[in-house]
């Protein structure tokens, strides 16, 4: 049970949020630039679709030492991208809490899951995805400008579950 409904939740099956209010459009979207599939459940295409998740395989993780703020580097790897533009809330000085949901399927993966969180100006955080945990939080201070976030797959086997935004 949650005490606050998310303003939006972006998932593989529902990657867009659009809220048209007083001729101003609040918009958030999720892009996936590559995910992985194995032959068997729960890593195969049908299972991923049924569970509304993307799977990332450690074999195809990005090297951690490149600058993924650069498209030339980003385009060679698997990553998720989010664009968020919430102008209606900016006027009210609102902030945004973004929850990144994930699953790590088992504890004995070759290495922990790892995501490099980037903006266009550089690395924001090198985030480990630990077995037993299932989310991390981004606190966005201001909504007066639209922005992009990039989540670079950089290690481990893990599933992406969704990105939920709470305006507060």
């Amino acid at each position, binding site marked *: 049970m949650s005490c606050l409904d998310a303003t939006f939740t972006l998932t593989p099956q529902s990657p867009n949020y659009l809220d048209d209010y007083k001729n101003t459009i609040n918009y958030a979207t999720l892009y996936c630039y590559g995910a992985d599939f194995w032959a068997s459940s729960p890593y195969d295409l049908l299972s991923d679709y049924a569970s509304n998740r993307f799977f990332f395989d450690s074999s195809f993780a990005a090297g951690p030492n490149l600058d993924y703020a650069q498209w030339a580097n980003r385009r060679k790897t698997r990553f998720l991208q989010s664009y968020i533009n919430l102008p209606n809330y900016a006027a009210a000085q609102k902030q945004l809490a973004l929850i990144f949901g994930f699953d790590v399927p088992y504890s004995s993966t070759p290495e922990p899951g790892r995501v490099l*969180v980037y903006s*266009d100006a550089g690395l924001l*955080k090198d985030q480990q995805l630990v077995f037993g945990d299932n989310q991390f939080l*981004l*606190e*966005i*201070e201001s909504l007066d400008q*639209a*922005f*992009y976030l990039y989540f670079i797959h950089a290690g481990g086997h893990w599933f992406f579950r969704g990105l939920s935004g709470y305006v507060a």
Partner: protein
Amino acid sequence: MPIIRVTRKQIVAANKAREAALKEKVESAAAPKEEQPS
């Protein structure tokens, strides 16, 4: 739960960086190409 804080200053810097990268890409595409040796 791990928390990543993104400040307004970081968002402004990111948008400036994106704008500069796009501008560079457009200028590079518009620049006359050198003739290739035959």
